């Protein structure tokens, strides 16, 4: 199941550890450009993380060990999920038959503990955030799995490397329409899982309207740093999946492939920033409708694929 510890595996781990905070910077810079502002530095997230690690934490008297454990699980699960997703042409260091299921469930584990930690504070706002996160996760999960069904049929495999590997390139020739639908639906999943507009506004100032940010209101210092870092990795993982899906082409030169892949992720980050800039946030009650809509479209993609001879 392990590749020989090749240069690609080392690069994979390094990319996962170092690259993700840059995406947040790119998204913010895109939004600033749309807003006619100069925006904060591209590397601001790195500075924030460094600062948070040096700060002290304040813990509410209501909380227990679960509150402190939440960020650790969030980060650890994001890292495990990042280990099974291939980055462009380079296969993932951790790969086995059925790793896609592990991918979805390990992220669920992180979500479980983030929500539990939120409830540990006893604050109504954080309870609200946890309830929303739980609800939207229920609607987003089937969309992810319907997409996996499509890719699994196209690639005849249940291993991420094959699922998001060369088979996708063949798939764009033979069954482009279902793949396109899956790509669009997964982009919606990316937005909701990572709490971007139109589902959630990471920069909003009103706790009543937040989802993810309100769950972590009480975290501070290194623990909060872990949350931001974990969220960046999770965003990177979903972006990587989209890039694998829409840029399955190989140049043959692996250095060039790495560059294409990383540019691809930056492009998706710009896309996320653009969506955030040109769209208003949905009313809270509209969110389930959009997610159910994405589910129906994915279902249609599966049926369409099954109808091909």
């Amino acid at each position, binding site marked *: *199941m392990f590749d020989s510890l090749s240069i690609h595996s080392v690069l994979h781990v390094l990319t996962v550890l170092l690259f993700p905070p840059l995406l947040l910077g790119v998204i913010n810079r895109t939004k600033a450009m749309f807003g006619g502002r100069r925006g904060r530095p591209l590397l601001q997230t790195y500075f924030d993380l460094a600062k948070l690690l040096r700060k*002290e*934490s*304040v*813990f*509410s*008297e*209501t*909380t*227990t060990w*679960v509150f402190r454990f939440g*960020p*650790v*699980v969030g*980060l*650890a699960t994001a*890292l*495990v999920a990042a280990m099974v997703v291939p980055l462009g042409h380079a296969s993932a260091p951790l790969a*086995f038959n*059925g*790793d896609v*299921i592990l991918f*979805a*469930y*390990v992220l*669920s*584990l992180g979500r*479980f503990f983030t*929500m*539990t930690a*939120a*409830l*540990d*504070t*006893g*604050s*109504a*706002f954080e*309870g*609200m955030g*946890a*309830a929303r996160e*739980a*609800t939207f996760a*229920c609607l987003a*999960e*089937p969309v*992810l*799995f319907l997409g*996996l*069904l499509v890719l699994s*049929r196209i690639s005849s495999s*249940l291993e991420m490397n094959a699922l998001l590997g060369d088979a996708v390139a063949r798939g764009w020739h033979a069954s482009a329409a279902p793949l396109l639908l899956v790509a669009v639906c997964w982009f919606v999943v990316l937005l909701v899982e990572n709490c971007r507009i139109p589902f959630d506004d990471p920069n909003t100032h009103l*706790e009543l309207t937040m989802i993810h940010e309100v769950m972590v209101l009480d975290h501070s210092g*290194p623990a909060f740093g*872990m949350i931001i870092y974990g969220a960046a990795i999770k965003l990177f993982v979903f972006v990587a999946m989209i890039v694998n899906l829409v840029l399955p082409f190989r140049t043959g030169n692996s250095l060039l492939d790495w560059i294409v892949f990383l540019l691809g992720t930056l492009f998706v980050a710009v896309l996320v920033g653009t969506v955030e800039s040109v769209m208003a946030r949905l009313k809270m009650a509209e969110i*389930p409708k959009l997610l159910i809509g994405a*589910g129906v479209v994915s279902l249609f993609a*599966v049926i369409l694929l099954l109808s091909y*001879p």
Partner: protein
Amino acid sequence: MDCHTLILTGAALSALSGWPAVALPARSSTGQSLAALMNVAGCGLGLAAVWMFFVDGPAAPLSCPSPVPGSDFIVAMDGLSAFFLAPVLLVCGLASIYGLQYWPQREGAANARRVSFFLGLMTAAMVVLVVAGDGLLFLFGWETMAVSAMFLVATEDQLAETRRAAWLYIAASHLATLSAFGVFALLYSQTGSFTYSTLPDSTSAAAVGMAALALFGIGTKAGLMPVHVWLPGAHAAAPSHVSAIMSGVMIKMGVYGIFRVASFFPEIPLSWGLLTLAVGTISAVLGVAFAIGQHDIKRLLAYHSIENIGIIVMGLGLALVGRATGHAEWVLLGICGGLLHVWNHALFKSLLFFGAGSVIHSMGTRDLDVMGGLGRRMPTTATCFLIGAVAICGLPPLNGFVSELLIYLGLFGAIQADKSSMASAAAFAAPGLALVGALAAACFVKVYGIVFLGAGRSERTARVHESGPAMTGPMILLAGCCALIGVAPVLFAPALDQAASTWVAADAGLNARVAELSLSTLAPLVPVSIVAGILFALLAVGTIVLLRRVRTSPKSLTWDCGYAAPSARMQYSSSSFAQWLVGLFGWALRPRIHLPKIDTLFPADVDFESHVDDTVLQRAVNPATRFFMWLFGLSRHLQQGSLQVYLLYILLIVVGLLLWKPAGS
């Protein structure tokens, strides 16, 4: 001594375990201790027999004459029954120990003796049911189990609610018994004997009848969705250790019945497989949806049993689809996933019921909305409950993930099947299972958060204390088992392989192909262990880093957006957490919402309430019952209570018979 003698000795010991308590004075706790000791010893012998079976292989069947002429009672343990026996024996033994402190005889007097007595009897009945090699002994064990469970549900029979639950349970249970009678009568009509054997064909009306009776009749006992109505009330009314047995293993006897009957058929039509899969998926999704709306911790856990039975039946459905289409690997994955989930559910659900019992014992109520912050006062219970909660949501690195992974592998196999095969339809169960997982996570975040985290919602939470070692010990052991299966599933693969090959034995063609496969090559069991190891390592590193980096952490209030005087009543409650999901499933749940209208500027105090009742019970079973009450009530006019009227009836009938001339006579 072979494994049959050993397990029957154990069963006898369990069955007799209640007698000392009956003979001894009501207020003495000696009887209960003796009962627990004997039941644990009986279960221990049984587990030894199961171990012996797995090591030495099957023994020669035992038989003795039965009351029915021409038929024998047969005891024959095979791979399938040995697999179901293990959780029965483990959970029943632990429940006896747990009962020592949860339901002590010193406090409960008369009904504690009843609990000891029927607990032992029910253990023995389940053992007999599972080791039976013929329909008669199966029915004997089945009925003893059903009736013992009724007395256990009715332990607190001074409460009207409990009596209602017990009546509903016994009525539903007899529907299942009737179906089981039907199944074995049809088996007799087909093969000329009550002994388990392969049917001559699967297409005759009798065979179809057997399949339908098994799924919807015996399925009543298992708690499948439209016929689950007895389950939530009975689980909530029974003492918690009894609920643990009922939910953890008794409803599995229904599952065992379905699995066993399914193994009789030489071939399976594809439609049966898809139907079973659909029933399982609906049961799983709606079971968890109903669970989310509950405020009663035990009713909530009971609805999760419906969900998990649904997942097990999904595994069976997948295996049936595999048999219908000749895919040996789906058979193995489906049956192993379903069977492993039988174990897993027995472990984490009894763990959760023990945890709930520990909370109820301390709080004196089952209402979630008066709890809160119990984690600080009962840390062992809280940690064990959290492990059970993560396991039941199917999250890695615990056991629930492994069984769901096996079922997923099979379902994703179905989407890769040949073009234009209806078997691909099976794959649509995969997103259903994903939905179930997400809903279960939402529900258990809610339970764990509302009960153990945050601030106490009532005065009572301040007086809560940790339970004694007889209650926490079994929980710790079960939590350990959950972790063991999750971290090293490969240890259990041989037992699963054996059970699967027993199940598929009737299908001569497929049997050989299933025997060639093995679960450990088909499923990534070793990678699962490696991932668990990586996850634990990362968690350990993260915790250490966090503990080292966290400097002086001044304690303060929860921030609460600047509000300086938060009160416990401002926290999210179980209803508010679930509100959205209940709304999304409103078409099925039909919540009752009491929402006062506020139309003045200075309104008085108002209350908001929402309840999720059982839709099938309220909208279908109760109206049907009322109709039948009315219908049979009509015949009451005949009953006058005076002798003359009855003599008149006799006279009329005799005259009528004299006048009646059947055609042709």
